[in-house]
């Protein structure tokens, strides 16, 4: 039954033709100005966009371009990462279901492919590839901070089922997702990494209460979930009981490939130029404010642009070094640290240049509001996706080989100090 594999060039040519006939052009202005003076707008905006993504994903599937590196029996194309990379190159300039790549395809589909049962793969992966199942990551917890393995959400076995209780947080789009991959504690009497298990279940399951979290820029796309006696079939468990940390290794690995290199992601790469708070955007603010001739403003424009360019250069060079083995995988923490601090700095430069106009503005002035409200959530760039503090720990301990921090979380997890706040 196996066909002769299509060459990358032939495939790219076919993709080019198909894309021109089937995919809409990208809207270069969309997506980056995620400020919402009225928070309700945020949810509506996301709902509209996800509906579009589902449709675009279905088109990819129907066209034979979904799951390019996924085996045919799960609905994929069984081609190579080189084919996926070629498709992603052809995709530039077209709209595509960017917003559901992370979570649904990485890490969720990638983890299922590696560690899921045959039943799980057959039940979920084709639906993912058709845009019918959007997956969410139920991972972080309110008490957890940077310590993913410290999960307090508890799963108790009841015959062929499990009963989950607890709370998860920082889920992107919990309310529009169909299924969730969830880390839970199944054993409190062993060391913390040894009592975890990974489950999956429908977000619509009874006992799952999804609440929006409102950020300071008006965004309501992150969610917190409260799990109350949520019943999960054992066939929806992923990996072995109490071996959840092994699953997490792959989960976190695939999540990190968001920076590049995943064979499961369909994306044209970062949308170029029009980043908020990059040099050109700051120059535009200054031109509007009439102070572009101030040498200090020119310097701010240059500094912001330089930071973006350094980030870009660094992603390329560190990725190459990791691929060649010149740097270990932990070197990725340097990218995380640099981009976090650089983004923060650019946000500050934008506020400095816009000045008073960015703290009080005419209604509807999205450009200035985004600078002011963007400044309020400035630190998100140093928090989301792992804090820069954790990145500094990884760099110093894993990359530089400096002594590890003292930890007080050995022994049975039940006895690990959790502090008055966790009360």
């Amino acid at each position, binding site marked *: 039954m196996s066909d002769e594999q299509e060459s990358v060039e032939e495939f790219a040519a076919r993709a080019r033709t198909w894309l021109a006939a089937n995919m809409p052009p990208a809207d270069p202005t969309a997506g980056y100005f995620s400020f919402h003076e009225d928070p309700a707008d945020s949810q509506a905006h996301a709902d509209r966009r996800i509906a579009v993504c589902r449709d675009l994903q279905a088109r990819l599937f129907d066209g034979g371009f979904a799951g390019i590196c996924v085996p045919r029996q799960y609905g994929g194309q069984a081609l190579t990462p080189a084919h996926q990379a070629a498709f992603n190159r052809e995709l530039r300039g077209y709209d595509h279901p960017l917003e559901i790549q992370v979570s649904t395809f990485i890490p969720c589909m990638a983890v299922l492919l590696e560690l899921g049962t045959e039943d799980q793969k057959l039940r979920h992966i084709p639906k993912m590839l058709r845009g019918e199942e959007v997956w969410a990551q139920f991972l972080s917890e309110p008490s957890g*901070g940077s310590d993913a393995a410290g999960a307090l959400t508890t799963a108790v076995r009841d015959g062929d089922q499990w009963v989950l209780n607890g709370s998860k947080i920082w889920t992107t789009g919990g309310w529009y997702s169909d299924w969730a991959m969830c880390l839970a504690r199944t054993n409190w009497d062993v060391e913390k990494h040894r009592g975890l298990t990974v489950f999956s279940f429908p977000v619509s399951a009874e006992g799952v209460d999804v609440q929006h*979290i409102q*950020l*300071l820029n008006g965004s309501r796309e992150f969610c917190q979930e409260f799990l109350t006696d949520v019943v999960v079939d054992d066939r929806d468990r992923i990996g072995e009981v109490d071996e959840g940390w092994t699953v997490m290794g792959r989960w976190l690995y695939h999540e990190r490939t968001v920076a590049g290199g995943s064979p499961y992601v369909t994306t044209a790469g970062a949308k170029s130029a029009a980043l908020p708070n990059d040099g050109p955007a700051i120059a535009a603010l200054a031109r509007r404010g009439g102070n572009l001739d101030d040498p200090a403003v020119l310097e701010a424009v240059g500094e912001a642009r330089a930071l973006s360019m350094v980030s870009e250069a660094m992603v390329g060079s560190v990725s190459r070094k990791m691929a060649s083995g010149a740097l270990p995988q932990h070197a990725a923490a340097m990218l995380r640290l640099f981009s976090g601090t650089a983004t923060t700095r650019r946000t500050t430069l934008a506020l400095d240049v816009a000045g*008073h106009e960015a703290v*009080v503005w005419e209604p509807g002035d999205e450009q200035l509001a985004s600078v002011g409200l963007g400044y309020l*959530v400035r630190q998100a760039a140093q928090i*989301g996706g792992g804090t820069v503090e954790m990145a500094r720990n990884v760099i110093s301990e894993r990359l530089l080989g400096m002594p590890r921090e003292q930890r*007080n979380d050995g022994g049975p997890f039940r006895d690990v100090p959790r502090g008055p*706040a966790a009360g």
Partner: protein
Amino acid sequence: MFATTPDQELLERTTARFLEDRYPVSRLRELADRTSTFDPAVWREGAALGWTSLLVAEGAGGGSVSGNGVADLQVVASLFGLHAAPGPLLGTNVVAAALARWGTPEQQAGPLAALLAGEAAGAWGHATTVGAPGGRRRVVTATPAADGAVVLSGSVATVEGAAEATHLLVTADAPGGPSQHLVPLDAAGVSLTALRGVDLTRRYARVDLHDVALPAGSRVGAPGEADEHDEQLVDLLAAVLTAEMVGAVQRAFTTTLEWTVDRYSFGRPLGSYQAIKHRLADARTQLEASEAVAARAAEALGAGAPDGRAWASAAMAHVAARAPEIVQECVQLHGGIGVTYELDLHLYLRRVVVDSQLYGSATDFARRLGRLVADDEGRAA
């Protein structure tokens, strides 16, 4: 924070108790959704506590509690920061100071007395350019009419509390040089456009003046004096803003220090990690430095010292640069919850962001101080 005399401590206690009662965080969150956040009754009570009279000489109906009204007002302003409280504190005190210093007896008997009593509120059409570029440009002109009357036209960009104020103090270009005028906000030809902003409880408007005819006696001070007078008001405002920022930072710092004690990570309190300890040590030190220089500015301004402008500029240059950074550091140490609307921390972040930008930034005030130093140098050379 800023109280050093027993009378100031009394002012601090009564003001703190009053603000805690009237503006708990739950109330601030309600106000966030309202078009107006001004409560005339609360404001009258505040005036009775002394909030409006501190920059006004006793002869003009005011009075300080310590002999230095600027320092007294810092006591109040720091509590406004600590509670992220609304109320026309800045505008009313600036307008009152202007009327007390340069107003006619009629202006003092009328509008000033009403401001002091809390029956009226002032708004300042801040129009100086602190530092050169990026500052607000003056776009109001005054055309003389018959009998000393004057017609004002133009637009004032960002006026705090304009919708609730009774009087706007604004500088206009006039034939005799820039002049300050007191504009009743209910005068014909005055129109307001509500603006949006970062602060949840302060409201701003653009004030457009379309051939607003003012009778004789609307001018405050002599023609041509407005630039120097505006600079004096900027000095006073710098003392007040820096104190308010110090109060807001104090609150953010205290809650964050508690958080690092209560929050555990890898079985240890967050506050036991040296990297976090050192950053809080830096923040604590910058807070102390900010309070010190703000207080020193008030000392110099209240005493009419020749280096008052330098101290006011140094205070804003320093505090406006550091305060937002300290609060953002507090956000960082909270992690994700720190950027949510749910946590109260942003109330104080919003306050310092606005205070540190709206009336001139740290950069603007550093340049202002730099120019003072350069001019001194030039004279010395």
